[in-house]
């Protein structure tokens, strides 16, 4: 069934959510945020992603609501276009082509026909604020070349520009000065802080600016943590400012509430500060938001705030400073030490998450499942602090055990090391700390692996360390008459000539343990912990080590730093083959005998017993690949061609240096996209009363006639009469609560007629056809979809939208094929 095209590299989720300020819809029901080439629409109540607006061909850099129609959204992108969207249906309405790279977007309610954009001409560091006149036209693609410059030499970040007092002036900050441009007078006033003029190393650079919505007041944030409120700035001499100081590090963003009565500020402390009445004394805090606050935005209705954090998270906060929802993407704030792992239970991707946490990330739904707090200590976010890092983690015994290693090194000689072993608790469905080992080794732990053999009666864990030892930890019964307990204790310590142990790996059946000591691979018997044999290639330190699986279980593969891939035969204890290949990442597939190896420029899969790669994909991405993992498929595919066979059982995911998660896919882009572009608005569901079954359906049926025509080629499934809920409800509902019989009669008879009209159903879709359509499984989605339209009183527009839907969708999909992912590299 799957059409076998070439294998392509595709991005799979984990996109950035915190690149720009998030924008609330007018009714605060939705929140929009830019995410790579897309704009994501989330529901503020349920945290679900409702739509993904796709159409830009490059990084989206700004979004704003259309001030003249709050159901529409403007967006601008580096590809030089401004697009207008209907966000409720997720449809592109118009495209304005400007022609130069756009870096930020601002809209003003007083200037309906023009928007403000930040453009970059000439030098890479010189940005200008310009106003673009958007011509009125009915066509979908419009040229908008009419640019007029407002301010020159502005900061790149949109946080450094703010429009004040209904568009009377615009304030921009850069380095040490604040410039205000008055639209009426067409003059620019420039202010500098007196202290920064003299001192050479002044730390009061401006970092962000916000304007009071009602009064002439500008708030600026500074690098030294101060917030200054400027007044009387229309006069260059008489201006005054007051200072608010709480932050001890730079102020990342500022925002006024809708009424202007309070000012919100945030920074690296991860504390949202609300300054009431612009007074230093009157402040409220919302602490421990988890990571640096990068952006703050306020909903137009004034009931919600939201903060975007550096750990790819958006927190939605109530007016009374209570966090109400968290939209969390793949945390990409920090470097990944643990590598990619798969939780055998949930099949979720597991890697470093928030500081001190392990994140479980669902690849199917592109959503974080949960965070496991490993370090369990208060996180102080401050520059220059050496934090405890979670460096290694491994799952064992079908997800029953999880071992983690954390370390903190302040000086060369002061290493704090801790190993924790967690047990899965079925009752609480989570991991519970079982054993804590302080300083398991005297030096850094380089590798950690569980023995995952099926028949092994005792659980075994091996750690290898730079101190030259590897330790075997086994699960022992620790119970006495007072309590039942199990714990892990060290069973064996092995070493080889004081070389540093660099890797360890168990064979598939758990009978052998391979430990590499720099250049030498040693094989140990896991029963007696005897050294069985050693392999040495003298080709540099071993970087990766793995045993073959299934039919190839007699082979052991090793990759050295000098770029040699070796394969040893364990039966003959000799080198089977070796090849010159500078492998960065080597990962075995748990379900087949394949092994994926990623070199500088290409990925290949090998079968163990031959040096010839099974499949090579060149130029998979421009940056270094750091980690990879095979994810078992739920349903195996059935590719027949030799090049695709390795993807049958598992899918290969890998993470690049800039921490974008990529995978190999054979599906065409359309197929890949369909599930995500599904329009789901599962928000308001009416109670399913008997009335709803009869009347609610009738109403939607009238509205949906047109929609139905578009879908008429779909297969129609006919439910049995007994299964039609309407009929059973009708028969089981007391007569006094039913509507009048005359009203029900025609519908009831129609629904009974259904079964006889099976053949004609496809040819002439009529009311009856619709009725059964409704009873099929997907009816809920459709219902809500139409009700949504009705709520927003846009029933007149409805027909047009539906007609456009198919056309525009097609167009978007065509464009999407050409999308270049180069912007990932630019991040």
């Amino acid at each position, binding site marked *: 069934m799957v059409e076998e095209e070439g294998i392509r590299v595709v991005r799979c989720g984990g996109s950035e959510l915190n690149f720009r300020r998030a924008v609330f819809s007018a009714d605060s029901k939705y929140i929009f945020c830019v995410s790579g080439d897309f704009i994501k629409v989330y529901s503020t109540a349920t945290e679900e992603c409702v739509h993904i607006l796709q159409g830009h061909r490059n990084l989206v850099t700004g979004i704003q609501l259309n001030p003249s129609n709050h159901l529409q959204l403007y967006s601008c992108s580096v590809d030089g276009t401004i697009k207008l969207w209907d966000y409720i249906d997720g449809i592109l309405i118009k495209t304005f082509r400007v022609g130069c790279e756009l870096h930020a977007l601002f809209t003003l309610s007083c200037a309906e026909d023009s928007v403000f954009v930040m453009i970059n001409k000439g030098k890479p560091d010189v940005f200008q604020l310009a106003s673009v006149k958007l011509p009125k036209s009915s066509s979908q693609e419009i040229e908008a070349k009419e640019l007029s410059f407002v301010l020159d030499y502005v900061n790149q970040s949109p946080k450094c520009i703010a429009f004040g007092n209904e568009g009377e002036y615009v304030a921009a900050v850069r380095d040490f000065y604040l410039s205000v441009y008055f639209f009426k007078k067409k003059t620019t006033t420039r202010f500098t802080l007196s202290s920064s003029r003299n001192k050479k190393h002044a730390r009061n650079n401006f970092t962000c600016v916000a304007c009071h919505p009602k009064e002439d007041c500008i708030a600026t944030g500074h690098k030294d943590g101060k917030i200054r409120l400027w007044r009387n700035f229309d006069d260059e001499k008489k201006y005054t400012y007051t200072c608010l100081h709480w932050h001890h590090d730079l102020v990342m963003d500022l925002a006024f509430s809708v009424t202007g009565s309070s000012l919100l500020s945030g920074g690296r402390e991860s504390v949202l500060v609300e300054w009431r009445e612009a007074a230093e004394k009157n402040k409220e805090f919302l*602490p421990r938001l988890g990571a640096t606050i990068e952006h703050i935005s306020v909903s137009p209705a004034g009931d919600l705030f939201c903060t975007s954090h550096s750990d790819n998270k958006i927190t939605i906060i109530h007016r009374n400073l209570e966090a109400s929802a968290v939209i969390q993407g793949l945390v990409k704030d920090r470097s990944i030490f643990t590598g990619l792992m798969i939780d055998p239970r949930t099949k979720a991707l597991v890697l470093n998450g928030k500081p001190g946490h392990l994140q479980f990330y669902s690849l199917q739904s592109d959503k974080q499942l949960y965070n496991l707090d490993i370090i*369990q*200590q208060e996180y102080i976010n401050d520059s220059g602090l050496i934090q405890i890092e979670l460096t290694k983690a491994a799952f064992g015994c079908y997800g029953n055990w999880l071992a983690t290693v954390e370390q903190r090194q302040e000086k060369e000689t002061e290493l704090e090391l801790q190993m924790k072993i967690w047990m899965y608790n079925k009752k609480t469905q989570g991991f519970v700390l079982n054993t804590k080992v302080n300083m398991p080794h005297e030096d850094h732990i380089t590798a950690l692996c569980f023995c995952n053999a099926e028949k092994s009666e005792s659980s075994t864990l091996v750690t290898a360390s730079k101190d030259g030892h590897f330790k075997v930890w086994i699960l022992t019964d620790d119970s006495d008459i007072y309590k039942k307990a199990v714990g892990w204790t060290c069973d064996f310590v092995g070493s080889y000539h004081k070389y540093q142990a660099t890797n360890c790996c168990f064979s598939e059946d758990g009978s052998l343990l391979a430990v590499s000591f720099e250049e030498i691979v040693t094989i140990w018997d896991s029963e007696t912990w005897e*050294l069985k044999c050693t392999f040495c290639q003298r080709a540099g330190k071993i970087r990766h080590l793995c045993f073959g699986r299934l039919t190839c279980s007699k082979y052991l593969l090793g990759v050295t730093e000098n770029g040699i891939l070796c394969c040893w035969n364990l039966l003959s204890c000799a080198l089977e083959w070796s090849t010159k290949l500078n492998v960065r990442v080597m990962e075995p597939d748990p379900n087949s005998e394949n092994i994926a190896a990623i070199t500088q420029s290409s990925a290949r899969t090998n079968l163990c017993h031959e040096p010839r790669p099974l499949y090579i994909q060149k130029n998979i991405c421009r940056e270094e690949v750091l980690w990879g993992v095979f994810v078992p498929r739920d349903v195996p595919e059935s590719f027949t061609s030799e090049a695709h066979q390795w993807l049958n059982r598992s899918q290969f995911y890998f993470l690049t240096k800039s921490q974008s998660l990529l995978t190999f896919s054979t599906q065409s882009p359309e197929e890949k996209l369909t599930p995500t572009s599904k329009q789901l608005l599962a928000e308001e569901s009416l109670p399913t009363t008997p009335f709803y079954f009869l009347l609610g359906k009738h109403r939607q049926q009238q509205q949906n006639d047109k929609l139905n025509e578009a879908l008429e080629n779909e297969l129609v499934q006919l439910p049995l009469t007994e299964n039609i809920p309407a009929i059973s409800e009708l028969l089981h509902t007391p007569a006094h609560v039913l509507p009048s019989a005359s009203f029900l009669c025609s519908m009831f008879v129609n629904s009974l007629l259904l079964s006889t009209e099976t053949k004609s159903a496809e040819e002439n879709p009529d009311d009856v056809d619709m009725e059964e359509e409704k009873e099929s499984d997907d009816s809920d989605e459709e219902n809500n979809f139409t009700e949504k339209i009705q709520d927003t009183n846009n029933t007149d527009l409805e027909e047009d939208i539906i007609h456009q839907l198919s056309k525009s969708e097609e167009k978007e999909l065509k464009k999407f094929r050409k999308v270049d992912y180069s912007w990932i590299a630019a991040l």
Partner: protein
Amino acid sequence: MAGYKPVAIQTYPVLGEKITQDTLYWNNYKTPVQIKEFGAVSKVDFSSQPPYNYAVTASSRIHIYGRYSQEPIKTFSRFKDTAYCATFRQDGRLLVAGSEDGGVQLFDISGRAPLRQFEGHTKAVHSVDFTADKYHVVSGADDYTVKLWDIPNSQEILTFKEHSDYVRCGCASKLNPDLFVTGSYDHTVKMFDARTNQSVISVEHGQPVESVLLFPSGGLLVSAGGRYVKVWDMLKGGQLLVSLKNHHKTVTCLCLSSSGQRLLSGSLDRKVKVYSTTSYKVVHSFDYTASILSLALAHEDETIVVGMTNGILSVKHRKSEAKKDLVPRRRRPAYRTFIKGKNYMKQQDDILINRPSKKHLELYDRDLKNFRISKALDRVLEPTCSIKTPEVTVSIIKELNRRGVLANALAGRDEKEISRVLNFLIRNLSQPRFAPVLINAAEIIIDIYLPVIGQSPVVDKKFLVLQGLVEKEIDYQRELLETLGMMDMLFATMTRKESTSVLQHNTSDEFLENNKIES
């Protein structure tokens, strides 16, 4: 959002004996009182009635001691030869004892001369006991017989001649007046029923039986002999339940704790072992100076009395409970305030919403939460904390270091405060588990207070002590390294023979000292 996470206090494994509720319970006795008897103490028996006096049989005398008296309050000494097995009746008013010459004598506690004398045994009577109806006495003797006597008319009722060796122990059931058990050197324990004239159950212990004990319910029988203690299920017809071999010499006496949860056994190997009667695992063990012959526990385990072969009677009294504070307590809210609303039963349609339990933070955590770092450090340096739980203090110092504010917290202290810090360092710097953290703190202190050194003699003295400590530690380390080198050489010679890699032993934690401290 996530709440404040309290500081993780590093816990260290407790060295030596594991602390369990049993060790706490059995260690909660005062130092033993030693009383010298005339010969080996063969039997100690507590009266089950207040004031819980106990009878001690040693040589030809029986002494009755009061609970706290060191001198006997009464002595029965009219024995021609060695007396054995002085036992109180359940009501505590009569005492029966056997003797070497084969007589069994019954005494009134208040009187002096024997009330009754039961003649009939031809050899030494080592075991006597009252039956549950209080009117009969069971005796076992070296003439292989067991006899049942009637007290009112001092007549022999029954004689059992089933044993084929000395009968050295016996015990009557506390529930059934007709049942009693005897153990003999013929390796058997027999249960007799006075209603029939033969034994009803006989179990094979395997060694000469030295002591038997029936559980209060009568369902379980414990026998001791040789190195074994065996537990038999009488309700299953004498099936062996468990066999315990925890002593390495003959077990001579058995005793149950007053709750029935623990079984005690004393042995010639000078140990008393305490077993749990549910799992039959040893939960505690006492050591004595000589081989133990007899053992008894007072009501509510208030006193442990052990008699030994060297004639020493060791009496241990339980420590009295903590004194109630005499300060009038503040009036607390009434009980019903606390149960208000708590006893509401959930109805069928109700949805139960639990109030999130409030997390209790330690005082130092509250300070740290509010970034009052110096205050937090002061709090954990108070003697109550720094002496009793140094790991808490060290953990806080570590946390401050992690936050990068340790120098700020240590700075700006006056003489009294800095000497408190230095005292703590002197006490704990040499402990390997605290050393990495404390050496770092010591360095910071020296850096901070170097300019003001010499201003206070108290602080200077402490610095000198610290320096001496560090020098001593360096010497130790040097010696350890030397030893390690020697051991390595020994191992190296061994490896040549075995030609396998050698298990490296963990070296002791090496200190990383620096010379700064010596400044």
